[in-house]
């Protein structure tokens, strides 16, 4: 697949936004359970603004993906069968919950209402992760995507980056949370590392179910395409091919593995020890870059069976 930048930004930004919100909610829940003292109300309120900004930016990015953005409202219609439609509903619902949560904190401070709203937000965040992940995971013939690992990875990456941002935010606004938050971040990051490595291992061993033989229905071991029927390219050659070399792909893979996992973890440890929000913010920024690369790779690695029909021109 050709990586679609609007979608890369959408999924990484809202993932971070979701993770950040969960971090905020965990902070309140932990305080309510007495694990730590209740962070200040601006921590929550502004944290929600931060989360909403990420979600909003993601939403905005998604519009760039649409040919007809003015009709975007129509996309909520098919929630019964389309994960995309469900995402389209879940995202604003979640944003509303985040806004309500933040507003409640701002207006009334922590309390039962905020806890309840937070719980609803958490539920919606998880739903949103599922929706987003399932958009890709549900396409059975994109075998690289068609696995529960896709949803798990989306969730864990979102949580890792959101918690990392949450840790930086805590270092700025509620230092009391930094240690715990750093631990959560590390846990999510390591979990994501495990599941992502699992998916990389899985994908490396995938055997494509579709072949040129099934694509054109000719049973012969040697089939070679000579013509696609056109020579100047088409939607099929633009949308489904990344047009990058294998070496580039490898570089991106190692790049994201480095940027998403070890580097942020080192900076996380340092930032947490120093309670330094700039260090932690840098860690987040680096990891976010890594996540862009990870998502790019996620698309690029997926081999669409339609590509079998677009191998050579003459």
């Amino acid at each position: 697949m050709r990586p679609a930048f609007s979608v890369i930004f959408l999924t990484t930004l809202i993932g971070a936004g979701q993770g950040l919100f969960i971090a905020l909610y965990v902070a309140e829940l932990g305080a309510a359970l007495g694990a730590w003292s209740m962070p200040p109300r601006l921590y929550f309120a502004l944290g929600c603004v931060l989360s909403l900004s990420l979600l909003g930016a993601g939403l905005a990015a998604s519009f760039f993906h649409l040919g007809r953005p003015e009709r975007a409202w129509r996309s909520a219609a098919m929630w019964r069968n389309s994960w995309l439609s469900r995402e389209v509903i879940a995202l604003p619902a979640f944003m509303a919950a985040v806004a309500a949560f933040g507003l409640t904190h701002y207006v009334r401070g922590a309390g039962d209402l905020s806890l309840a709203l937070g719980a609803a937000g958490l539920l919606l965040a998880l739903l949103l992760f599922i929706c987003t992940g399932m958009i890709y995971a549900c396409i059975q013939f994109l075998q690289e995507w068609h696995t529960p690992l896709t949803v798990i990875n989306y969730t864990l990456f979102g949580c890792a980056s959101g918690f990392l941002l949450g840790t930086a935010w805590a270092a700025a606004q509620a230092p009391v949370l930094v240690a715990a938050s750093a631990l959560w971040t590390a846990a999510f990051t390591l979990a994501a590392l495990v599941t992502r490595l699992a998916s990389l291992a899985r994908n490396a061993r995938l055997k494509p179910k579709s072949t040129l033989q099934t694509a054109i229905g000719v049973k012969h071991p040697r089939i070679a395409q000579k013509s696609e029927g056109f020579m100047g390219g088409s939607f099929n050659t633009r949308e489904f091919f990344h047009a990058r070399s294998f070496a580039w792909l490898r570089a991106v893979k190692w790049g994201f593995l480095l940027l998403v996992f070890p580097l942020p973890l080192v900076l996380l440890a340092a930032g947490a020890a120093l309670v330094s929000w700039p260090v932690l913010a840098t860690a987040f920024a680096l990891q976010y870059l890594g996540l862009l690369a990870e998502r790019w790779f996620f698309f690029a690695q997926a081999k669409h069976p339609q590509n079998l029909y677009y191998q050579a021109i003459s």
Partner: protein
Amino acid sequence: MCACRCGIRVHLRGGEVRYIDGNPGHPLNQGVICAKGSSGIMKQYSPARLTKPLMRKPGSARGDNQFVEVSWDETFRMLQERLAKIRSTDPKKFALFTGRDQMQALTGLFARQFGTPNYAAHGGFCSVNMAAGMIYTLGGSFWEFGGPDLERAKLFVMIGTAEDHHSNPLKIAISKFKRSGGRFISVNPVRTGYSAIADEWVPIKPGTDGALLLALTHEIIHTGLYDREFLARYTNAGYLIDLDPNSEMHGLPVHDSGRHEDIPEYPRNMLWWDRLSEQPAPCHAPEADPYLLGEFTLADGTPVKPAFQLLLERVKDYTPEWAEGITGISAATIRRLAHEMGVTARDQKIELPIAWTDSWGTEHDKVTGNPVAFHAMRGLAAHSNGFQTIRALAILMSILGTIDRPGGFRHKAPFPRGIPPLAKTPKGPEGVRPDTPLAGLALGWPGTPDDLFIDADNQPVRIDKAFSWEYPLSVHGLMHNVITNAWRGDPYRIDMLMIFMANMAWNSSMNTMEVRRMLNDKDESGEYKIPFIVVCDAFQSEMTAFADLILPDTTYLERHDVMSMLDRPISEFDGPVDAVRVPVLPPTGQCKPFQEVLIELAGRLKFPAFVNADGSRKYRDYPDFIINYETEPGSGIGFLAGWRGKGGEKFMQGEPNPRQWEMYARNNCVFQLKLPPSYQYMRNWNKGYHEWAQRSRLRRYADPIVIQIYSEVLQKFRMAAQGRGPAKRRPPAHLAKRIATYFDPLPFYYEPLEAQITDAHKYPLNAITQRPMAMYHSWDSQNAWLRQIHAHNYLFVNPALARAHGIDDGGWIWVESMWGKVRCMARYSEAVEPGTVWTWNAIGKAAGAWNLAPGANEAELGFLLNHLISDELPHPSPAVRAAGGEGSPGEQRISNSDPVTGQAGWYDVRVRIYAAGADEAEQSWPQVAAVAALPGMDRARKTWLAFVAGKKK
């Protein structure tokens, strides 16, 4: 549009073309349509359309592509003045050559009335070998004049066929044939289009088809799988040939001097050796049966053999094993193919309960067919050994007994014609006189050396040297040599060259770059060597830049056209068919149909056929001309055969009908006459048919057309070269050997001329082109839809060959011949014989031509194989070669063409390939300077297109 001339329906919305589909009522395409026809909209509205008459900007150099608009009045005035002067001094200084136009009857008439011998269409560089080889043998040919009867055939063998030709009818027929269980064998170096769906693909080395056909003939004769009865009755297989080495008639059939010859052109008094009476007998005597084999001595002591015996002796050494080494096809496969053909022909006979009478009066109660059909085209024709190869094919078809019989080869009216047809050129320069129509046709069918169009010194009268000793049977002319000859002044210089619908500055010329230089070349006085060039076309092409005057033609949607019986009609097997086009759109801009230009000029120049007795203009316009023109006053024969007579009640012949166009339009624009079944078969020898054809004035005589297994015409030329025989003319010494060699009355195989002089180690590969079905000739790169399908071209190379040369799939390579080289991209293909490389024809374009952006794929990535092909070869005679000539110091040359017909040897070129260097530009080579759009053309090329009919208005 194209020469297949299918019937179409054009649907308009708001004055714009909404949809073009096939006309279901049309006999040719029966409602289907091809990719080109379906893309007619993009052709009609192409930004490459020429819309105004243009004159080379005064002071600018030819080829600089600088033009100014000029009015039609001024255009006609200029043309009239120049043409009148040429006509009143030396009419042959006007040369009119046309491409694949569909108005050769009119363009030919114009040239003839003008008085110039220098007229031809593109046949000489297309497929004249096919026409000549078959017509001199069978009296008919493939495509417009005949074809395979796939409705009844059981085995179909296709050899070397251009896939953009006769496209829809052939596609319809092949599909039906396959569905009804027929077996389809394709012989071709390349497996594309039609060959793709063949049951068996037999890859062959280009130019060796003759060897295959002769080996098949060998095997069929030696296993006794030939149709003896057919050969005996309907061919000259049983004619006794005079083998007295001292006879003036050596090698000609013995004539029975006692018998009266009723038709001097087609004597019928040959002899058989009757098997029943064991003595000589008049040929075709109903009670006799000739020996086909053996040797005999006539009463006067003359040793004779039946022609078939000579054929048997000829093919004796052409064994399948011999052919294997030449063709690359295993001897076992050749044998099997021969057996399949022979056994199918013999054992799957078709008998139709149709009574008919043969030309010798014998009544038959049935028509028999041997269901083996063949089709062939340029793959055989475009070689310098093509004529003899095609003779071999026609003879193979004949010994299988498949001519004009169900399931075999079937004629289409106005064919069959006598062998050779009666049409003749003048026989010398006296036929060309000022202010006088040509005393004959510009193109004809020589029957003896005395029919050649040469002067007393054996020099050609025509600029292209057609009908000269160099190419005696060049029945379609040699358009590919016109520019070179005119530039060199050999045989003479001309004043005006008018080119219609031919891209001589690009894909229609061999040696393209040199031809472009010649078009621009000036003599010492500063005058262009070809002083005035007029180009008429609907589109800007590479050629338009070299014009002094450009005439914008209409498209096929904007004008009246006729598919006339006088030209190449669209007849079916069961009878004559002609057709018209009526305009559905007004002309774009100031476009004017070329026919109107000719009618206008003919009137202004006062050609006898175009003016009344008082000198006033006879025809208002082209439609008026079509209705009222008669070949002779009162002949009742005109361009259209349908709805003649005052009220449209007559067919084939009748007085002009003022409402003829309307009547055609009301009848799907087609006139179709279905002959009674008894006239539909065996038409070479069908008495009823011949009498009908004579009554309808399709033919002058009603004599039988006997298949020339052994060619008398060729033998007459050979004898002239040997200094004997009935003809008065003798070839010049330096061409005698050439004539004696190639005018063999029996088919033989020789390596193409270019191969004979090529170092096969240095240039081991054959390079050929194939025509893509989605393009017609070179005419569709201006079409926004079609050019997406073929935007540029690759050289297809067998992977084994490519790897041996270190060539990557998709990599840039050099292709080099003795004459030049091109840089292009390679594409691996398992569907090409490893000794052959090929590409799609004429996809490569000059930068900026056809109003494409200079960086378009066609120019940057596409390439033209023509750069590798020479228009000339060293002269075969060392003495002449050394003598030299103008423009080519030190070396006299001869056209790279078949020595019999002058057919351009496009497919003879030998090449080598090697990978281009990594540091070389990834761009095809050679490149030419980009040309800009012309005045009247859309200069701002749209960056994107969204065609919706009727939206513009």
